[in-house]
């Protein structure tokens, strides 16, 4: 299985990355190299093996979903590239 530069363009779209044609060519080649190396995995029979999503035996522990205020709201807004009042401004969607 190898990926074409069209596949790479599709993936770049999914990843929200605007890539130049030169970057796309380079990444297509490098991804194929890496995926080719990953083909090694196909040799392994894993049909009866359970996946390990986390190395913790306890799984993910949940806490009570309590609302608490963040103390430095002004600081958060200061990091915003464009802010109006307590909102982050983005370019028009419609």
């Amino acid at each position, binding site marked *: 299985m190898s990926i074409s530069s069209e596949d790479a363009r599709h993936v770049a779209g999914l990843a*929200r990355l605007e890539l130049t044609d030169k970057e796309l060519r380079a990444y297509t080649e490098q991804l194929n190299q890496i995926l080719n190396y990953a083909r090694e995995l196909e040799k392994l029979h894993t049909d009866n093996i359970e*996946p390990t999503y986390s190395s913790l035996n306890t799984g993910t522990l949940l806490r009570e979903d309590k609302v608490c205020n963040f103390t430095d709201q002004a600081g958060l807004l200061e990091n915003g*590239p464009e802010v109006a009042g307590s909102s982050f401004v983005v370019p028009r969607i419609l």
Partner: protein
Amino acid sequence: MHKLSLKEARRKLWRGETTSELLTENVFQQIQAHEPVVQAYLSIYREQALAQAKAADERLKKGDTDGAPLLGLPLALKDNLNLAGTETTCASKILKGYISRYTATAVQKLLDAGAVITGKLNLDEFAMGSSTENSALQKTTNPWDKERVPGGSSGGAAAAVAADECFGSLGSDTGGSIRQPAAFCGIVGLKPTYGLVSRYGLVAFGSSLDQIGPLTKTVEDAALLLNVIAGYDEKDSTSVNRPPEDYTADLNSDIAGKRLAVIKELSGEGIDAGVRQAIEKMLDKLREQGAVIETVALPSFKYALAAYYLVATSEASANLARFDGVRFGHRNKSARGTLEMFKRSRAEGFGPEVKRRIMLGTYALSAGYYDAYYLKAQKVRTLIRQDYARAFAKYDAVLSPTSPSVAFKFGAKVNDPLSMYLSDIATIPVNLAGLPGISVPCGLENKLPVGLQIATPEFTERKLLQIAAAAERSSGFERMHL
């Protein structure tokens, strides 16, 4: 005084033979003298650090050291750890100028223990890399040889400790990012068991693999820092609630009768001959101390690197989705729509390796490929855990080189991603299984340090540090001093 270990500096402080202000001044003099070449620091907090040092001296004068095991000791942080009010860049253009509004739990624990924070340290952008060459901000050099890389991704954290520009640092380790640079710079690097140290406030890369840990001059120093940063935190849902332990407790116990196994898959092909020789000599010294050393085959390891790069990049592609130019970080100003703004901001803000990994991870998670790549990789992870479990049924620890080579020259691997990834081949299985692992300097090859990696079962850091301390005692390794 900057050459002292953390433990030695603490002893002098507690005995009143020096002050925190003097220690801190000494560190800043060292920084001033050597940073032009080493370039480990991205930010330096001279004023704040000296204020912290003065406050610590007041407490020391009163004998008020309870609950403050690091009182007055200068330490530094990898720049992917949040400290409220400071810039956190992850060595990326996309976060340049970003000011943290909260403090990572591990960092807060250092502050609560009285530590003086000297600054933030360089890394591969978003901790993705093995040489720190992927930093978008500056080039950190190896204090042993300025033509060579310090390793990565915690390259700044390792170089600063090796150059005596701090008494210890905190880094993060997703696939070897603490241990490999520690090996390259001739210091100690510890990756704790997944879940032992809270990840809250660490900028996420591969969430099921990331762990914060210390980089230090000695094994004992690593244990001292682990004592402070370990522990349950409700702000990290993967943090494990366990009774506290004193990780320094067994450091002086001998290792006679300990059963150690050299990993067959990491002792032959793919490992440089000089590195193998340094490890062999180290093994002889461990034998002299009464350890029983055998070889163990862990056949799943040959699949570890491929599995890792699928798991880590998949998780990274999801974690890095938050950098979209809306709430923080770089934003492209010319985009006409929101989608275009996302795409351009990310394209301009991320460097080549980060983009490459986002692409690989997005592909591995995309429709039609999920089972073949991501799911398959997670199954390989199970096989790796099973291999370790079989080994640990018979042995106390498994050993290997930390890295297949000593520090390489700048530019040697930048154009070949796969060859760069291969430098993590020995460290990656430890993360996939969530185990604790440590790199201890064990000798020199071509005048450059070689690291011995030791791994033990989960939450057995005491035993890990005991074996590491025995290796350190018998290695005869001497740190370099600039």
